[in-house]
């Protein structure tokens, strides 16, 4: 099966296994990438953010968000173990999580831009052939949207202070740069399999371009800052 798109819906893990190891591998790769990213999001960024928050309200919002990310991690992990995939979180996370968080500005820009990448990836999964995954993202997307709107609102608040502009601009430049690989390589055997099996519909470049477009709109339109050039192609 190469040319035709996989048309079906796959109701559960047993049905996935009945389709064969190729299907399980394709769904598994997507699920495991979220298992890692959600945990890295909770541990590497959000817990330090509780300490970086400028006031009690921000501290408690950051705490709620950290717990939600942890909850997302556990829910993706449950999907992975239903598929018979082992402990997935100990593998290395994507490059974006090597980024060291040192200021509140970086945290809120991160929620606005990097969580938007998570939203773009999850929105595509609303049509995924693997129904347990589809149902999970339906439940998680409202929380992920909240993270993005939290990030945007607090970034907008920061840029009302001209003194904060260089810091916000630098956070935008750095975070955009490290988020580009998040969508995968332009030439990707994995992505070919995802589309063949209806796990995803778009190429990695199409998803990357959509994310960059939505980010640009926020950074240039709302914040009045410069958005760095993003090449839709990326091959590592």
């Amino acid at each position, binding site marked *: 099966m190469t040319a035709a798109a996989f048309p079906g819906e796959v109701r559960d893990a047993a049905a996935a296994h009945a389709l064969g190891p190729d299907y399980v591998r394709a769904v598994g790769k997507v699920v495991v990438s979220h298992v890692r990213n959600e945990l890295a999001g909770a541990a590497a960024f959000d817990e330090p953010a509780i300490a970086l928050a400028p006031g009690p*309200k921000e*501290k*408690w919002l950051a*705490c*709620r968000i950290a*717990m939600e990310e*942890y*909850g997302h991690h*556990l829910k993706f992990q449950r999907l992975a173990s239903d598929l018979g995939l082992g402990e997935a979180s100990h593998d290395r996370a994507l490059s974006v999580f090597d980024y060291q968080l040192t200021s509140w500005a970086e945290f809120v820009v991160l929620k606005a831009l990097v969580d938007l990448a998570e939203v773009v990836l999850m929105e595509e999964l609303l049509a995924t052939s693997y129904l347990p995954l589809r149902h999970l993202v339906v439940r998680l997307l*409202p929380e992920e949207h909240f993270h993005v709107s939290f990030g945007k609102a607090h970034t907008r608040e920061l840029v009302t202070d001209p003194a904060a502009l260089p810091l916000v601009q630098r956070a935008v430049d750095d975070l955009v740069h490290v988020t580009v690989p998040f969508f995968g390589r332009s030439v990707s055997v994995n992505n070919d399999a995802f589309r063949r099996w209806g796990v995803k519909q778009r190429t990695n470049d199409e998803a990357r371009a959509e994310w960059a477009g939505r980010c640009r709109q926020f950074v240039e339109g709302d914040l009045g800052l410069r958005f760095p050039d993003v090449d839709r192609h990326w091959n590592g």
Partner: protein
Amino acid sequence: MAWPLTVVDQDGRRVTFAEALGPGGARVQELLDALVRGAAEAGVDVDSLALMTPAGTVDLPLARVSLGEGVEAAGQVDGTWLAEVDRRRNGCRQALAAAARDEQMEAALHVAMLLATERLDPHDDADVDAHVASGARLWLVAGAVVSALSGADPDPFLAWGRLVAAGWWPVGPSDGRMVLSACGPVA
């Protein structure tokens, strides 16, 4: 998640969650039991517990307010008081790390957050105030778990842990009052 939890230990024996956590585990289990009972819990002396803050007992008039007023008051919470709560919270974590009990701490927080994140879930996914209240209560639950496990005596988070479990959000000293918000029953 099923509660109370039974855990299989290294030797394959079934033990309670409290036993698996080791010293302080019984206190953690009590806190989580109370959280699961939720607002149904009777005999909680709200007025006196509210004054026994994690940074010490305060002598302030108690103001019971709505969730919206609680969030407003949260913006003016006494910064020195908040820093002291943070200091004690971190102190308990450090004590556990120094005793090489990181694994037990992580297990306790993991289960506590599994139980609490759902129970203290903001009903409206876009309501910022509800997220502030939920986050504050999760922050207190995490503090109470770590404090209980560390064996701190007296336990600075005991009183407010009970209040959160019983459905309250103790906000903190704000504008000369001790502010307590009734954020509705724990779902």
